């Protein structure tokens, strides 16, 4: 099953490699990983998507908690949460394809962030599934470049990732 694991950790050199090293050393899978400092610059938030059964996810959470730099680990998938990912994609456009691409952009509420003579740069934020669906609807032969941020997420309502349980 797909899990989104949110990790609050010390914003220190090497903290990322400790987490990444743990996943590779223990053979855990990483689908995506994002990391950036929080509003408190001494802390980083890392969000990892991993596909594994519940037993493995339990091991991942325990092993992450064991890392000295890690302050809190939350399996977002076990709570009500919001996930988002950002896509930037460049596609070739010409007179024949333009209509269809514009239709997709409208259907998925994408933003057109740059337009040149024959290239569109499109931005889309949403759940990973939405991004996958959008990409699947494009003509693969017209896609020049795809860059995705990977998933980030947050708990809904009263649950917090930073303080308390």
């Amino acid at each position, binding site marked *: 099953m797909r899990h989104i694991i949110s990790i609050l950790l010390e914003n220190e050199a090497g903290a990322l490699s400790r987490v990444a090293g743990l996943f590779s050393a223990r053979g855990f899978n990483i689908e995506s990983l994002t990391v950036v400092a929080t509003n408190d610059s001494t802390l980083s938030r890392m969000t990892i998507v991993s596909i594994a059964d519940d037993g493995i996810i339990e*091991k991942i959470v*325990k092993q992450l*908690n*064991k890392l000295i730099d890690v*302050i809190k680990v939350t399996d977002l998938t076990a709570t009500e949460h919001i996930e988002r990912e950002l896509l930037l994609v460049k596609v070739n456009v010409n007179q024949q394809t333009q209509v269809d691409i514009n239709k997709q952009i409208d259907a998925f509420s994408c933003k057109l962030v740059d337009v040149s003579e024959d290239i569109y740069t499109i931005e889309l934020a949403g759940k990973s599934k939405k991004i996958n669906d959008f990409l699947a609807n494009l003509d693969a032969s017209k896609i020049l470049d795809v860059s995705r941020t990977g998933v980030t997420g947050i708990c809904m309502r009263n649950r917090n990732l930073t303080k308390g349980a």
Partner: protein
Amino acid sequence: MKLNGAQILVNSLKSEGVKHIFGYPGGAVLHIYDALNACDEIEHILVRHEQGAAHAADGYTRASGKCGVTLVTSGPGITNAVTGIATAYMDSIPMVIISGQVPSALIGNDAFQEVDAVGITRSCVKHNFLIKNINQIVNTIKKAFHIATTGRPGPVLIDIPKDITIATVEPKPYPNSVEMRSYQVPSRADSAKINAAADLIALAKCPIVYSGGGCIIGNAYQELRAFTRQLGFPITQTLMGLGAYPATDKQSLGMLGMHGTYEANMAMHDADCVIAAGVRFDDRVTANIDKFCPNAKIIHIDIDPSSISKNVAVDIAIVGDVKLVLSDLIVKMKTKFIQDISLWWSQIDQWRSVNSLAYQTKLGIIKPQTVIETLYEVTKGNAIVTSDVGQHQMWAAQYYHFDQPRRWINSGGLGTMGFGLPAAMGAKIAKPELNVACVTGEGSIQMMTQELSTMLQYATPVKIVNLNNGYLGMVRQWQEFFYEKRYSMSYMDALPNFVKLAESYGHIGIKVEKEQDLKPALIEAFKQKDRTVFLDILTDPTENVFPMIPSGAGHHEMLLAGRDEMASMNDDGLNLV
């Protein structure tokens, strides 16, 4: 008065109560060595190889419970120490390793003797630090000792660039404690868990205590003894746990696992309640996981939540300091009635009567088991025994009956050949009043013989008991059983003359070829209180370690000496090591 980084580092170690450092100098640590030279409170032991330094600090820790310290230079200094660090890590041994680093400005430039020490050691330390500023030194050292010695202990590395040891600053006082928001140590367990465990224990008709290295590292042996005796339960101990509960006590079933006793393994298999204290359900212990304790409810006490349900799903998980958890259980069990387990004991006595450690003696040939039994007799069971890795390690564990903790020192997790001799040196420095024996083989000892030189320089008299059968015995045994006797690379021709080798290092060497000479030689060796004695004992090259659970089998499928000489293994088993 301003001090340089090296002086601040040495002063911090002094404040931490460090009395001994095992190390080896080099370019990046010259300033630290200069500061050490001016420090009378700390004795530095100059090893002959950095791996020896790490193992010696490790042996020092295991014998005394005090955190050992290793100091090495950058590049090859730290890479040589890595095997020793990994050895300590696998057995959860607290240790602080200080490695020099090239000057900050050169880091990343492929400078002379530069290696990414923090990167290389990341997966075999509990934590590591690269000091980037002279003002971080005191706090980093305080944190390193705190992390190394608390919770589930382990080695912590501090990498310090040379320029930081040279820079000067007005020193800050060494802190008494350190706060880390990201590191909290579990102590007392949840009382609901204690109550649930007590209820389960009270219902048990076939209980067994399964204790391990955590009871030694966590200094929980008094509680373990009181708990086990209070309930009258049988107890089996892992390789790492030997000595926490006295081996000669009637409730002790001996070691369990691959080369454990028949009674211990059968009792595990048939138990209805397993109280696992400070253990990690290692593959050497569990044998085939699918066949492990099929009828038992399992209570697991461990300070490390990641150990719980890692290999075996347990029924009651108690996260906490094993010493405190056992004390709480002792109190709780006083209010409980427990089941009559006399039938269980009669069953265990039947298994015991198999006498699974019996072995055939052969006229004119020294059996390795006899050597360990004689060592036990001559030292009255009171020596610290270190071992290397292989058959001799198993025989030492089986036939030297440890009644006290911190007397049995071996590399259980990583299985590091070469560990025994430097560990014995470290143990002797920690406990000069005790006899120290290093049980080894001609394969293992050759990985660290250079430390014989250190042992002369620092007068650390150790008795080396070399079970010399000419073979890498454990490899040979597996090749005999599972590779149709194709003895690929397990025979070592051209062995050195160990007597002359010992003599050339200034020690005493004794060769023992006949059984009647064995006991007199051991007595003579221990009479030489101030000398290291190398006993090169020629033992039966065909002897195998029994009893044995072949890979892939369960606890109840043990092979016994004499009964099942030739083992077999299924395809799954062959994949295991």
